């Protein structure tokens, strides 16, 4: 709730002027909310088109939903094309990407599976999130009907919609009930000790000496230290020019982290949002099997584009400048050293 004192706290005096005390509450409210009490007079009015461009949020009551609609049947091919590489064809989640489907009745289990179906309280959150942030790396590229269709398909996979031809629309959206809507409760803290419940113990707090019950070293999941702390080695690094060529591929491995969300390399590499990159060096563009390339990439391939250090360097510098219409939404590697390093790294994978 708005607190009246908060409105006054910004006055230079920090206190309401005395006359306020003699006004009725109604008058006070009118004064507070209709007169600009602090004249910073900064900013400018937002235009309706500007608000429309940014005001994309959706609420559980459906506020914010645009016109349009889509069925699970409409959503399936879009899902398979845009979502399945990370979330799995059945919503099971590839690798550590989020699982979307299943987990019903597991919330009390030792290993609960929290999915859209088992955990999310409102369907509006699905629509809002797909529209604002998905697909990962190509946000806000889906049309409103596509978002309705994908939302319907994800709900269909979770048995929340049971007819694949049911059209989810703005009008019927608020009727969707999520299974776990009642599963959320308010903050109940303090549920642990406070001084109101007593002073913490200071001596002989356990009857017997304390014993170790679990050791992190047993599990051993702590990442290894990469940077050496050895003094002599650090001096060597500081005293000589960086041995750049020898480390180039290793440096490229780090640069490749920027690519790894969409591209895989190595033995188990598969197509993800982007094609697998094994053997990319020296290969003709647009040749990875089963990957659905953009029209722009197909055209470049038809014109004979071959990936080598030079062409890949141009592409990676600014993908959408080099190839207008490419699906690769990556902004590019403006640093020439980064490009050289990542290209060196890719040469290893044949």
């Amino acid at each position, binding site marked *: 709730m708005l607190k009246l004192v908060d409105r006054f706290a910004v006055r230079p005096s920090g206190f309401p002027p005395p006359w306020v005390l003699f006004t009725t509450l109604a008058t006070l409210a009118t004064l507070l909310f209709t007169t600009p009490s602090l004249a910073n007079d900064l900013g400018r009015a937002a235009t309706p088109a500007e608000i429309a461009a940014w005001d994309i949020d959706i609420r559980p009551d459906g506020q914010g939903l645009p016109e349009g609609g889509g069925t699970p049947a409409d959503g399936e091919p879009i899902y398979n094309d845009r979502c399945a590489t990370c979330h799995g064809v059945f919503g099971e989640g590839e690798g550590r990407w989020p699982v979307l489907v299943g987990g019903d009745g597991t919330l009390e289990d030792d290993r609960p599976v929290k999915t859209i179906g088992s955990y999310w309280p409102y369907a509006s959150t699905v629509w*809002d999130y797909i529209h604002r942030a998905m697909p*990962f790396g190509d946000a806000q590229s889906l049309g409103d009907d596509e978002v309705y269709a994908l939302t319907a398909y994800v709900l269909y996979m979770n048995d929340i919609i049971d007819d694949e031809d049911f059209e989810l629309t703005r009008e019927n959206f608020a009727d969707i009930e999520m299974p776990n809507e009642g599963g959320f409760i308010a903050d109940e803290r303090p549920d642990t000790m406070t001084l109101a419940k007593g002073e913490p113990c200071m001596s002989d707090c356990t009857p017997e000496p*304390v014993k170790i019950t679990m050791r992190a070293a047993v599990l051993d999941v702590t990442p290894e230290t990469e940077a050496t702390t050895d003094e002599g080695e650090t001096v060597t690094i500081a005293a000589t020019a960086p041995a750049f060529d020898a480390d180039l591929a290793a440096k490229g491995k780090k640069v490749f982290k920027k690519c790894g969300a969409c591209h895989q390399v190595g033995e188990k590499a598969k197509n993800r949002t982007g094609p697998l990159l094994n053997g990319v060096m020296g290969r003709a563009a647009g040749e990875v099997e089963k990957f659905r390339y953009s029209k722009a990439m197909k055209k470049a391939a038809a014109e004979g584009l071959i990936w080598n250090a030079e062409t890949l360097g141009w592409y990676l510098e600014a993908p959408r400048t080099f190839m207008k219409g490419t699906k690769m939404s990556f902004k590019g590697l403006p640093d020439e050293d980064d490009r050289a390093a990542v290209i060196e790294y890719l040469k290893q994978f044949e």
Partner: protein
Amino acid sequence: MTDPISKSGPSRRSLLTTAIAGGAALTVPARANDPAITELQPWMQSLGDGVDARPYGTPSPYEADAVRRDVPWLTADPISSINFTPLHKLEGIITPNGLCFERHHAGVAEVDPAKHRLMINGLVDKPLVFTMEDLKRFPRENHVYFLECAANSGMEWRGAQLNGCQFTHGMVHCVVYTGVKLKHILEEAGVKTNAKWIMPEGADASAMTRSIPMEKALDDCMVAFAMNGEALRPEQGYPLRIVVPGWEGNMWVKWLRRIEVGDEPWHHREETSKYTDLLASGKARRFTWEMDVKSVITSPSPQAPIAHGKGRTVISGLAWSGRGTIDRVDVSLDGGRNWTTARVDGPSHTKALHRFYHEFDWDGEPLLLQSRAIDSEGWVQPTKNALRDVRGTESIYHNNSIQTWYVQKDGEVENVEVG
């Protein structure tokens, strides 16, 4: 495991005096001269870099291991991921900008400040747009606040897992923010009487959103454009982020482009699917915003073992609370059986990190180090078992329990649990 200070008997000073009087401590064995003194070092003779060699200074190459680190298996990829502040390498209460942990949902947005705008819309009299220059014309304030990810220590719910306070507690940092109180900006737009919530939104490709109650927005929330005296770092939301003091870090939306005012919460992904705390009952708590009282010993710790052997030893650590200042920190050397009140040193700001120290003479026997903080609201940091008793092990978020470090005879330190 003994605490030489708290145990009864002759004081350390009297022991020392006895030793000197007896002459035993003075029989220093003849030792070789220290070449660090007797030999001319390169920096004593030749000239170093001139003033323009480092226009933006960086740490000594000998401090190369004071860096943020990640735990690759935690997340699906490094774009939507987290890394950790090297708490074991830091002193005082302020985190250097380059070491503040990062958590992104769509990578680091590289925003051009000339093209950055802050829009206020929704239940306001007049929706407004501000440029960065506009925002810098409001009255400015400076405040020191910690920012802790609600998932800090989240990997430790089921038991000791990661060896290093960087990994167990490093999703926290503390800097001085410069910015504008949010209430000034909301005032400019004129908040309608039925407005009860705000929703900050980021300009990055995740367009992060959270619902924040109006009471908090008008209390101490800020929009900040500087940290530790310089512009925000890109990975901390350059050019603008919202500061939500004492509340979970996820709410401190970076690259802040819009604040919508509304009468209901939005229940967006980061406050339903994430940042809700699943209990053993299968019910989940939501809107658990405050970060509870918490502390950790940063040295000794697994990445900062005791290298000097027995004798005078300094325990150094951090304590904080999202509800106020730290009133007291207790330290135990025996796994929580006996406690001594530590010395809180340095500035004490509300909702900021506090530094504590405890000096003691180590007898070279194994130790089980713990720290327990108490905040100005009287909240006491719980043991791991006490917390698990009420929350179960699947909450992910808000694990503020007491950490145990096992110091072995050789000074090596390990993350353990005690019973």
